[in-house]
């Protein structure tokens, strides 16, 4: 678990730098794809709903985006964790899809 979290910290840190310094060149009408959010959604979608890595990912992703954001610190963490909780809730209650762990 700890190794996975350390690995995700590095991944989200690099991805946030990539998002803030590389992606602005590839905008469509001033909007860019939020790769950090995409990764958090994918992790939460394909993880077993009972596991916690998705929530940790959301927290770390939110933390790094907060560092490079102009909004009050904590807003991105709140949004990302809520997204992760929402996905987990929907998957647990209504959807059955094959996950990495089960396959």
């Amino acid at each position, binding site marked *: 678990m700890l190794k996975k979290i350390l690995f995700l910290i590095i991944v989200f840190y690099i991805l946030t730098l990539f998002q*803030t310094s590389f992606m602005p060149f590839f905008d469509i009408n001033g909007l860019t794809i939020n790769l950090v959010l995409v990764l958090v959604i994918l992790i939460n979608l394909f993880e077993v709903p009972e596991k916690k890595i998705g929530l940790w990912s959301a927290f770390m992703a939110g933390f790094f985006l907060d*560092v490079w954001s102009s909004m009050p610190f904590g807003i991105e963490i709140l949004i990302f964790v809520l997204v992760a909780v929402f996905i987990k809730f929907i998957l647990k209650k209504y959807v059955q899809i094959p996950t990495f762990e089960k396959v």
Partner: protein
Amino acid sequence: MRFSIGKRIIIIVALVILIFLSLNLTGFSKEVREFFYNFSSPIQRNFWQAGNKVSNFFESIFNAQNLNKENYELKNKNQELLGKIVLLQELKDENKTLRQALEINLQKEFKLVFSEIIGKDIGEDFILINKGSADGISEKMPVITSEKVLVGKISQVYNNFSKVMLISHKDEENSFYVKIQSILNSGQEKDEISIKAKGKGKGGYKLFLEMIPKDREILEGEIVVTDILSGIFPKGLLVGEIRKVEKSDIEPFQTAEVSIFFDIKEIDHLFVLTEY
């Protein structure tokens, strides 16, 4: 002492809220941000340069078809501008003589701090530059390009970094007064007088002008510059050109969309006006 799951969740949520409140209210979040900016800036600079190169490469491929047309148009425009330069040179000489006569030294128009962009906020129109309070920068200072095009103003200052709020940011306090010049971008002059309007950002690099009197006909391509009423911005900085005009019978004023002159993808360096 054991707590039920519900109580535990409430305690965790309360603790998290407390941590974030203290981070924001004590200003410690500024130190956390600056710590990350300090050791990330070399990586960010490399990503920014790489992004610039890759986007230029793809742009040249996509725009290859339009190159001939663009080249022809630019040649024509260049000739027109050359004619204007000659005229302006004469005026400059005349102006110089008059200044000497009046003993006015306006050589020092602005005091500038040179800076580089290293990042952009994801959702909003903010950019991060590599100069901060250690270089004499403070909040609300205007930021321009080398062509005297207005980019925005300093909104947050760290020791070695600053955040720039672009003129297109939708913040209500970001609005400023501009002047619509009676000169078209093509160099032609119009018979109308210059008028004032209120510039207001809409986010996503979009800027709109409001409070334009209905009786003044606005044409696409008219140049927009900052006005003396801009407050924090010095007058005469280039802002953009009129792209689209919207008139309504019920509204007392007309509005116009402005195509801003700067493009952060094209800018290599910026200047912060510390004195003007």
